[in-house]
């Protein structure tokens, strides 16, 4: 069949708009990356990745303590919130009829919408005020409240992709519901779940606000969870507003590192899909 010129024009116009939109998403990404690389590359050195800061005035030193601090607190928060989040997601998807599920859903929706700085203040009141000290725990707690609703919603959405008749087939084999959920539903969505969890963690690793008044930040390596701990975002913030050129350069390098970590997490999340599964996931979703 031949397309009329009018149809052809509309098709072209639409394609053009779609391409324009896609490019406008890409441009900021490339610009940010380029910018960070330019500004930060001068401070990127082995020293930067291996050492803690030198005293003011001395050149050199790095953010290794902040990288370790970020990994520690993000890791801790993931340990807390990922299991709880997955369980809540399972509950929302598999037991959605009940009243409790409705309340849980409402709570999760609200949690998702709370600005991260408010979560920081909340954690400050609970931990910092009562224990009279900034601490890594307080930071990890704040981050876990940020991760929790994301993991819950992602889990729920992913499990809903498994058709109902698959669950029925499991039950029809004489399997109790919990075995169907564990061995058929969760197992069948394992890869998508891992992806979802990694993306949630990656989101949390860039948060600054909730760490400002909880973990506070520090200039040294610390292995005590009850004391202040440095993190990349807070370190970047502190250095960026400092008057010293060397620190500002390091802030750029820190930002670059942070982006690399997030990018690495995102890419590893994607890799959990083999190509075939990736296709299936998107086909099923659409």
């Amino acid at each position, binding site marked *: 069949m031949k397309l009329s010129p009018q149809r052809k024009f509309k098709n072209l116009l639409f394609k053009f708009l779609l391409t324009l939109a896609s490019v406008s998403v890409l441009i900021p990404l490339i610009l940010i990356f380029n910018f960070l690389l330019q500004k930060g590359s001068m401070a990127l050195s082995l020293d930067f990745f291996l050492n803690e800061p030198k005293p003011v005035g001395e050149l050199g030193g790095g953010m290794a303590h902040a990288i370790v601090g970020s990994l520690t607190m993000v890791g801790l928060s993931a340990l807390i919130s990922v299991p709880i989040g997955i369980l809540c997601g399972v509950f929302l998807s598999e037991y959605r009829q009940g009243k409790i599920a409705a309340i849980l859903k409402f709570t999760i929706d609200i949690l998702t919408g709370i600005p991260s700085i408010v979560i920081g203040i909340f954690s400050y009141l609970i931990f910092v005020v009562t224990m009279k000290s900034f601490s890594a725990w307080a930071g990890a707690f704040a981050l876990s409240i940020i991760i929790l609703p994301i993991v819950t919603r992602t889990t729920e959405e992913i499990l809903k992709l498994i058709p109902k008749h698959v669950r029925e087939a499991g039950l029809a084999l004489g399997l109790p519901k919990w075995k169907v959920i564990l061995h058929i539903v969760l197992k069948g*969505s*394992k*890869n998508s779940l891992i992806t979802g969890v990694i993306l949630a963690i990656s989101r949390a690793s860039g948060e600054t606000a909730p760490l400002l008044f909880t973990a506070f930040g520090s200039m040294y390596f610390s292995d005590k969870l009850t004391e202040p701990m440095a993190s990349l975002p807070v370190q970047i913030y502190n250095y960026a507003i400092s008057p010293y050129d060397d620190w500002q350069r390091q802030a750029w390098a820190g930002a670059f590192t942070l982006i690399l970590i997030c990018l690495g997490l995102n890419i590893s999340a994607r890799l959990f899909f083999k190509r075939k599964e990736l296709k299936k996931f998107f086909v099923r979703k659409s």
Partner: protein
Amino acid sequence: MSDVVLKVNDLKAWFDDFNAVKGIDLEYKRNTINAIIGPSGCGKSTYIRCLNRIHEEVAGAKISGEVLLEGKNIYAPDADPVEVRKHIGMVFQKPNPFPAMSIFDNVVIGPRLWGERNKKNLEEIAYKSLQKAALWDEVKDKLHQEGTSLSGGQQQRLCLARTLATNPPIILMDEPTSALDPIAAAKVEDLMMELKDEYTVIVVTHNMQQAARVADYTSFFVLGELIEHGLSSDIFTNPKNQKTEDYITGRFG
């Protein structure tokens, strides 16, 4: 042991307020094949989904009446649906292999999760079930590929094998051959005939010839009601009800 394995007394089923099955009374004898025929939407699927307590998994579903399995009501307050379903297996209308799971694991998941851990035994079960389901030759070299990678008809036979692996004395089949080509369908029909020695089969079908060929008894449903039930030979050659006659001769439905 009594001759009757399954007895249905005044069974009714609802989706919210919609009454899909309106009071069915039927008996099923041991080692027989029983066909259910009737126009689309008349409640055949809903009816057999009540026989293994799967209907209640639908939101808003309601059921009344009795289903006596070897004389015991599966809807009694102390009856455990999980136990009921171990005795009454089901092959669904749409093929539904478990996702991200190999062909082998799909077949043996029932026995494995019931506690069979021995690898040899599981391999034996997989071999026998796939053989019976007329699928072995097609998949024997790719047992570790995903079940969802098979064609629709192969998936349906995979689901059949999965049910056979759990060895239930009663097997419900909801249009098991509607997704199959004539050769595979004929194989499944042969299988039903063989199954008769050990199992009781209740099968929903839109294929009149199939019902006439394989079923000992046939029930005719219209709009959630049982219009006629009897020996297939009677139903298909000498129906008592005018509606039945119209339906099997293709003038109604």
